[in-house]
């Protein structure tokens, strides 16, 4: 979707605050910690469904609220949509003093570190057919995005680039967001900066994207 998340190349943003640390506020740390449970049960779903839910935030909200607040609304949305929690329950939970200890097992720091290690996910999936393109070949990206989740950013649509790597089949994000795990060939494609941004861009520079085969046609 052509949502507010598709920021590549958009203009009007100011300078970058280059000194900022990973966290500024305690609630940000807690949201990050909460997100570590986000692939469990009703708070989760595939990474692609997770991203798509985030992309569907109203544009004004997406642009205005802090980063981790978006994650929080995303998780609350999933709880309401898929977890049997009502909107009223969410609003009351913001107001109420947290209740007792709950029923979940308590993890140690060691458990958390090990969970990070065990979370080494692989996205390989057999595409069921030979690749359409080979390294060195020129390809053109589609002009149109997809009405749903997609990982071809607007700035790289309708552009000609060169395949620099073939990664075999990977789970295709566009279908994965819809709950279907299907493999498609994944490539890295290099675009010159002038191809993407026009003649005033620096010809020494390139932008490389990892793109699935359905995004590409022969140049």
């Amino acid at each position, binding site marked *: 979707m052509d949502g507010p998340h598709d920021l590549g190349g958009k203009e009007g943003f100011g300078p970058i605050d280059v000194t900022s640390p990973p966290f500024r506020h305690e609630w940000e740390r*807690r949201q990050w910690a909460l997100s570590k449970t986000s692939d469990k049960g009703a708070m989760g779903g595939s990474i692609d469904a997770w991203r798509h839910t985030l992309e569907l935030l109203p544009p004004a909200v997406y642009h205005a609220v802090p980063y981790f607040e978006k994650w929080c*609304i995303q998780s609350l949305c999933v709880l309401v949509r898929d977890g049997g929690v009502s909107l009223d329950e969410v609003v009351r939970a913001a107001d109420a003093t*947290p209740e007792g200890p709950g029923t979940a097992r308590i993890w140690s720091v060691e458990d958390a570190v090990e969970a*990070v290690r065990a979370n080494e996910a692989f*996205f390989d999936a057999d595409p069921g057919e030979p690749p359409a393109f080979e390294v060195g070949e020129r390809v053109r990206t589609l002009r149109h995005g997809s009405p749903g989740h997609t990982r071809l950013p607007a700035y790289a649509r309708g552009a000609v680039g060169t395949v620099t790597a073939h990664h075999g089949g990977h789970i295709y994000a566009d279908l994965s967001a819809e709950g279907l795990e299907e493999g498609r060939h994944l490539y890295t494609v290099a675009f010159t900066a002038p191809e993407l941004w026009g003649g005033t861009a620096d010809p020494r520079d390139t932008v490389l994207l990892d793109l699935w085969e359905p995004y590409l046609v022969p140049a």
Partner: protein
Amino acid sequence: MAFDRDKTAHIHRELHSHLPPDPALRVKALESLAVERGYVARETLDAWIEAYSERIGPKRGAEVVARSWVAPDFRQRLLDNAGMAVREFGYEGHATGHLKAVENSDSVQNLVVCTLCSCYPFALLGMSPIWYRSAAYRARAVREPRKVLAEFGVTLPEAVGVRVWDSTAELRYLVVPQRPAGTEGWPEDRLAALVTRNAMIGTQRDLALPDTDGPG
């Protein structure tokens, strides 16, 4: 189950308009619900915070980079398959399954961004800096990487082209900065101390030696 876009967007609007505006209260709501429903224990959240503040961070990546400088066979394994290579340290995990190492050179500066969200090799570099997830960085890194680098204090030599890696699929990128001159014979741990988080994302090019005040 097909993704219900309209329903999702509707819930977002309802939540945003009914919840108090303070993000701390919103997170409190999520925490209360998650604890109450048994998805997570409150103490586990503290454990996660400590894990990412004390154990999992850019020092991991720095060790990997340092070894690639001193061990040519490891360097080759890293370039061939970085996800497998970091297993030698036990640093595999969240978002390293399809890790790719990209080396800077006299003619190349690599820069990593995720324009569509905020993909990052968490198990190797820890939580990302705020600037990495900022709209300004995500928007500008692909369009005007040299201006972005200038804001980080980096001026590139004439011969250097920028390669911007936009993490649009599940591959994740580790920039391997150039080993600084004057470090011949240094042990791995002393070299690793030179390698910064920004250098491994690509917003720092020259690593500073401890005694110098070179550009960050």
